[in-house]
């Protein structure tokens, strides 16, 4: 039990590393909200998995990646109609998920749970994080150019639509790793808030990534330990999200010039 909790703690730290990196790119590429919507698409999958007694991660993965393609297709078009469509997808996913998830599993689907993790689950999660970190590193130059200007990136040979799909898939994979203990509603919060906080603190790219990862790791470690030893809620997700939000609020006071 203690070993499973320790494995979970280490995996949560790994997750926060991937979340910090992915969040920085999403913030600069203005994909935070699209990614947020994708993460909520995990909920119908979790609901189906609980209903049919399947592994929740499998159910979440199925609708997450389906949602990724859907949002990617919508995002390729620009304008109000796209934003509206993404908003509709978000609301519909949440509603369908809430409707089909058994009531006893609804809270953990939305906000996560803190049961220990098996060695196999740990290894799969760690492999997913390693893949995310490696892929962000490999794609960093393409992403930097696309963030600066899609046209200039494309003129340099970067395939923008494909790059966006790869990135949304990395976003979804990161959410999937965090889904178990943060839930469908909170998994993306750890992608959004540390990067938003780091952005307030620096104008330098390398510092931005570093700060986001450090903030993410700190929020996760503090939230997890605070919950385990002091608060004893059924899940550390909300505590982690509240600490992340507090750090963001504090960052507004010391905003980089």
């Amino acid at each position, binding site marked *: 039990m203690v070993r499973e909790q320790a494995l979970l703690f280490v995996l949560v730290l790994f997750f926060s590393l991937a979340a910090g990196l992915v969040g920085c790119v999403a913030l600069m590429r203005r994909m935070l909200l699209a990614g947020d919507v994708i993460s909520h698409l995990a909920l119908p999958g979790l609901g189906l998995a609980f209903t049919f007694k399947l592994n929740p991660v499998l159910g979440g993965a199925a609708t997450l990646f389906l949602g990724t393609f859907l949002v990617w297709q919508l995002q390729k078009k620009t304008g109000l109609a796209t934003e509206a469509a993404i908003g509709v997808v978000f609301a519909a996913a949440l509603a369908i998920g809430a409707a089909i998830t058994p009531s006893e599993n609804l809270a953990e689907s939305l906000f996560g749970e803190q049961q220990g993790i098996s060695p196999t689950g740990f290894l799969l999660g760690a492999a997913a994080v390693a893949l995310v970190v490696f892929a962000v590193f490999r794609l*960093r130059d393409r992403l930097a150019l696309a963030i*600066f*200007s899609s*046209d200039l990136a494309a*003129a340099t040979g970067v395939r923008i639509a494909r790059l966006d799909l790869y990135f949304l898939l990395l976003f979804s994979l990161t959410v999937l790793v965090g889904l178990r203990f943060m839930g469908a509603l909170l998994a993306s919060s750890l992608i959004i808030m540390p990067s938003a906080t780091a952005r307030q603190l620096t104008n330098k790219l390398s510092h931005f990534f570093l700060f986001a990862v450090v903030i993410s790791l700190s929020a996760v470690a503090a939230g997890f330990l605070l919950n385990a030893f002091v608060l004893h809620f059924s899940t550390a997700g909300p505590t982690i999200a509240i600490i992340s939000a507090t750090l963001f609020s504090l960052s507004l006071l010391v905003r980089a010039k």
Partner: protein
Amino acid sequence: MTNRLLSVTNVTISFGKREVIRDLAFQVDEGDCIAIIGPNGAGKTVLLKALLNLIPYRGEILWSPQARPGYVPQKVEADRQLPLSTRDLLAAKARLLKLPPAEPLGICDEVGISNELLNTSIGALSGGQFQKLLIAFALLGRPNVLLFDEPTASLDELTEEHIYELLHSLQAAKGMTVLLVSHDLSVVYRSANKVLCLSKDKTCMGPPKEVLTPTMLQELYASPPHYYQHVHEHDHESARERDLRIAPEREKW
């Protein structure tokens, strides 16, 4: 014999049902400097984007295998508050194109980007400095064709002069082929050996002296162009070139 770098045949570009460019054809040879002129909305920027395959088109755009195009856009949609420095951006492109790590520094030297500017966040660059960054970005990878879209829009005169000096030195020193979108007819006279006119109803191409006639300009811009021809006794040609400026409203950033 000059090398043909680009052949454009029957190119039509539409947005929905609206045709911006219809059945356009022209060729670009090595060493050409082609100025693309026309009123706002005539499709000048759209044409450059089609040439770079950034937007869909019908017809044929055929680049020679020797052509290595570089692109300086009129504007960049980037958030100027991005935590990206000039160095970050140029280094990213250099790595992507597998160029030697020192190449961005050499280009910056040519363009006039100081070491201090290299470390400056793109949000803190002035209009002229940002334009230099775009030019340096385009020059990375040693292109032999430069597509220049209104390179001096929104710049002050001194900076504008500096950017055009840079353009001329690229043409002269490297024999760079240039496609230049400009509203400034004095620049067109000074730089271009051919002019491509684009407007809703008419396209034409030829040497500046043949194309930039008052009648042609009037047809091109539909309303009477507010240009004036000021001829001095001693320096007939240069004065004419200097003073022939067109004044319909300029496209803004």
